[in-house]
C-alpha cells in the first residue's frame, strides 16, 4: 500500500486551484522508518508527503478545534479515520464545505515490529465512508468479530480480572494524552480535568485514574471507531482498547448491530433507543 505519488499529485493540484489553505498528511520520521503527522501550508513542501503501511495516526484529530470555520483543509483518511470524521461532521464539529477528503481504501497498517495490529485484523470498514476522492479499490464491509482480548478476559474469574484492571489503572499517570489524541474528544472543557473538585475524583491515584478512564470510555461508548490513537499516544502503554471494545461489543450485540460512524447522521448508540432493547437485567 503506497499512495505517496497520487497524494502529492492531488495536493499540488488542490494548492494550484486554490481549493485549500493547508493540507494534513504524513511525512517520514527523521530517525527511523515510522511516520509523523505533517501539516503543510507551502506547496514547496509537497514532495515530503508520504502514505504507506506505516501511516498509522488518525489525522481527523487535526481538524479541531474550530479550524475549519476559517480555513479550508485537505486531509488523508483511512477507513477508521473516515468513520471518526463522519461522526465529527454529524456532530457539527467540522464544516463539510471547508474540507477536502482524500479517502484511502486501507489494506491494514503495520506497527513498529512490522506486524499487522489487532485492530487492522479485526477491522470492519477498511474503505472510507466519507470522501471527495478515493484511492484504491473498495473491498466492502467486513464481518464483525469479538475482540480476542475481551473473550479471554471475560472467561477469567472476577478476582483475576479485578487485579488485572487495578494494575492498569495504577500504571496510569493521568497525563490525558489519550483524550488529547482522540478525534472525538473535542469538548473545550472536559469533566476529567476537574482536579480540585470534590464532586469529581481528580486525584492522581488508582481510584482517580479509574474514575477518569471509566468516565472517558463511557463518554465514547457507541462513538469509538477503534482507530487506537489513544493507545499509540499512551506513555504507559496501557491497553485502553479493552474498555472501548467491551462497550462496542455490548452495544453491537444488544442494540441492532450498531457500529459508530458508519452512516451519515448517526450520532451514536446513546442518541437513540428501541422499544425492544434488552430489559432482563432490570428488576
Amino acid at each position, binding site marked *: 500500500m503506497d499512495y505517496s505519488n497520487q497524494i502529492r499529485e492531488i495536493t499540488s493540484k488542490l494548492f494550484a486551484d486554490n481549493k485549500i489553505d493547508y493540507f494534513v498528511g504524513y511525512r517520514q520520521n527523521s530517525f527511523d522508518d515510522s511516520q509523523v503527522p505533517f501539516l503543510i501550508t507551502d506547496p514547496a513542501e509537497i514532495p515530503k508527503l508520504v502514505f504507506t503501511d506505516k501511516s498509522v495516526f488518525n489525522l481527523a484529530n487535526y481538524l479541531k478545534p474550530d479550524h475549519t470555520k476559517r480555513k479550508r483543509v485537505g486531509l488523508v483518511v483511512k477507513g477508521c479515520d473516515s468513520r471518526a470524521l463522519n461522526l465529527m461532521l454529524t456532530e457539527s464539529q467540522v464544516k463539510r464545505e471547508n474540507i477536502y477528503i482524500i479517502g484511502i481504501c486501507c489494506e491494514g497498517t503495520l506497527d513498529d515490529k512490522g506486524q499487522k495490529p489487532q485492530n487492522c485484523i479485526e477491522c470492519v470498514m477498511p474503505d472510507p465512508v466519507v470522501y471527495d476522492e478515493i484511492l484504491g479499490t473498495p473491498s466492502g464491509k467486513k464481518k464483525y468479530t469479538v475482540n480476542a482480548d475481551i473473550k479471554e*478476559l*471475560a472467561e477469567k*474469574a*472476577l*478476582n483475576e*480480572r*479485578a*487485579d*488485572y*484492571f*487495578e494494575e492498569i*489503572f495504577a500504571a496510569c499517570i493521568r497525563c490525558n494524552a489519550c483524550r488529547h489524541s482522540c478525534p472525538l474528544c473535542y469538548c473545550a472543557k472536559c*469533566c476529567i480535568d476537574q482536579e480540585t473538585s470534590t*464532586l*469529581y*475524583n481528580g*486525584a492522581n*491515584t*488508582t*481510584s482517580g485514574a*479509574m*474514575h477518569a478512564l*471509566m*468516565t472517558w*470510555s*463511557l463518554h465514547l*461508548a*457507541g462513538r469509538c471507531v477503534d482507530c487506537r490513537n489513544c493507545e499509540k499516544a499512551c506513555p504507559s502503554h496501557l491497553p485502553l482498547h*479493552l*474498555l472501548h471494545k*467491551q*462497550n462496542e461489543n*455490548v*452495544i453491537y450485540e*444488544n*442494540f441492532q448491530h450498531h457500529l459508530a460512524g458508519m452512516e451519515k447522521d448517526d450520532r451514536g*448508540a*446513546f442518541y437513540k*433507543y*428501541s*422499544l425492544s*432493547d*434488552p*430489559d432482563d*437485567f*432490570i*428488576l
Partner: protein
Amino acid sequence: METEVKEAQGKIVSAENPDISAPADWKPVIIGILCNWCSYAGSDLTGTSRIQYPPNIRIIRVPCSSRVDPWFIIKSLQSTADGVLISGCHPGDCHYITGNYYARRRFLVAKKLLNFIGYHENRVQFSWVSAAEGQKFAKVVAKVTEDIKKLGPLHRYKKENF
C-alpha cells in the same frame, strides 16, 4: 461471569477481593438513586403504608432515571457505598416521555463495563418501580440488600485507601 461467594467461619468474604472479610453482622451501605416521578413516590408510599424494608439504603432523588450519569455509580462505589440501586419509571410511563428508554441503554453498557473491570454484577442493580408499587419497592430493596450482604464489603478503588 458469575463467581462463587465464599463464606468462611461465619465471616463474609468480599467477592472482589478474597483477602478482605467482614464479621457476620456486617451491614452494607447502599445508595439508592430514585426518579422523582415514580420510584421516589413509590418509596414514599412504602413509608406511608407502613411496609418494613431494610434501612441500609440511602436515597437520592433525581428528576429522571436518564439524569443518572454513569459516574454517579462510579463515585458512589468509590465512596462508602457497597452497592448502588437505580430505579425509575416503567418503560412507557416516563414523565419526560422517553427518558428511561435512553437510560436503559446507558445502564446496560455501564453495568457490563463495571462487571468487566471487576465489580460483581450484583453491586449495581436497576429496577422499574411505579408510584403505586410501594410493595414492590420494599421487595426490591430487600432483594438488593440481601444480594450485597452476600458479596461482602467492597474494597477496590476506594478513595480513602490512598
